[in-house]
């Protein structure tokens, strides 16, 4: 019931304005649609005491809670696209969850350099380099060499509210 006060989905012009666009604009319109969403992971305790994790709309969110940010892509065009890279800056108020896919490509320097987290270092407060941690991640990205017409997928990363 608090969904609207909790979560504002402001559809970007690229997704929302398509039907009303002029012919010229449509020629420039993207064949790829990107739609983001966010869910909260909540542990639900059943009457028999067993616990299970559910993805729910993010109401009543406090520091320490887990969020799953997702970006769905869909290729609506009729020709394959190449070098498809989805980059997602992490909001400052969250950190990458420790159980994020270790193969996920991340950046700890604002998107300048990339790699898997285990291969990255960051300069600490004393100036010396130290291994980068999940909390240091500033961006995540997914690189797909090519996507075919009609292909779609969903890219997610787990985050914990600082």
């Amino acid at each position: 019931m608090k969904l609207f006060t909790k979560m504002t989905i402001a559809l970007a012009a690229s997704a929302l304005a398509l039907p009303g666009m002029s012919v010229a604009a449509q020629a420039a319109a993207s064949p790829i649609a990107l739609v983001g969403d966010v869910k909260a992971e909540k542990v639900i305790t059943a009457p028999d005491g067993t616990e299970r994790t559910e993805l729910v709309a993010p109401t009543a969110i406090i520091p320490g809670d887990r969020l799953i940010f997702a970006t769905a892509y869909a290729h609506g065009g009729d020709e394959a696209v190449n070098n498809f890279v989805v980059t997602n800056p992490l909001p400052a108020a969250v950190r990458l969850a420790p159980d994020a896919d270790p193969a996920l490509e991340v950046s700890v320097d604002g998107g300048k350099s990339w790699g898997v987290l285990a291969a990255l270092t960051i300069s600490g407060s004393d100036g010396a380099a130290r291994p980068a941690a999940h909390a240091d991640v500033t961006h995540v990205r997914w690189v797909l060499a090519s996507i075919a017409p009609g292909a779609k997928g969903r890219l997610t990363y787990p985050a914990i509210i600082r």
Partner: protein
Amino acid sequence: MICGAAAITGLVFSAPALAGGVTAGTLIENTAVASYDDGAGARTINSNTVTVRVDELLDVTLTSQDPGPINTRPGDAVLTFELTNQGNGPEAFTLLANPAVAGNDFDVVVRSIAIDSNGNGVYDAGVDEILTAPQTTAILAPDTVLTVFVLVTVPDGASDRQTSSVDLTAEAVTGSGAPGTVFAGAGVDGGDAIVGTTGALATARGQLVVGVANVELVKSVVLRDPFGGTSAVPGTVATFTILARISGSGTINDLLVTDAIPDGTTYVPGTLALDSAALSDAEDGDAGAASDAAGITVNLGDVTADATASVTFDVVID
């Protein structure tokens, strides 16, 4: 790369490092960007932005700041506590002092609860704010630490070495309960307020121990007549000893021992002594003064039990 290193050092997360985490009301906004090559060149599109508002976490801690039981006598005493808003939003807390704790030898009367307005850690009457019922703090920003005083009166019937405890409770005004309890719409900017691990309720115990000291004075006299005997005749020197015994526990403040010079005798100048150390007759820097007219006075000051002090002086029989 030098320029790259410089850019890295400039990269700072804006999320504040609060005990309770990100401040309530913070909007978490997530947008993904895709770039690709569709044959006609490189293109970039943004996803929609999803926004989650961080709700208010209700958490509080309370601790006694007294290093141990407060030593006190019947009368007024002050217990000191420290309250911390461990939540992530601005919150006020209701304070309740309970003097009737199981195991108490006696119960104190709680006169009031005060806030350390000048922040010096010590209760200052007339300076520190006395809370009126219902005793509630101002709205405290996250991580604010507040010193709270509970002003109590120890009843006259309390006797030496008896102890008493006072429990102070702080409860978030928005509400308290089991961790995870949600107060819908009660948080910052109309968001929810959620009870944290502390239950948004904290209790701390302050303790008092009574120290009542008693003073007992025992006066004795030794006579020395001019003939080497102990008869009381003109010219006999009488040495008076006043033994002050301070027993029990605690401290006697400003203990003053006085005695008159008996009629028919004359004070022997220069004979006043405290614990065998001579005191001058004049009213001056030392603890004693003596004269025929005013008698003897010895100021023992603050004396902590157990202790004894011996005052001696000579008179001669006229």
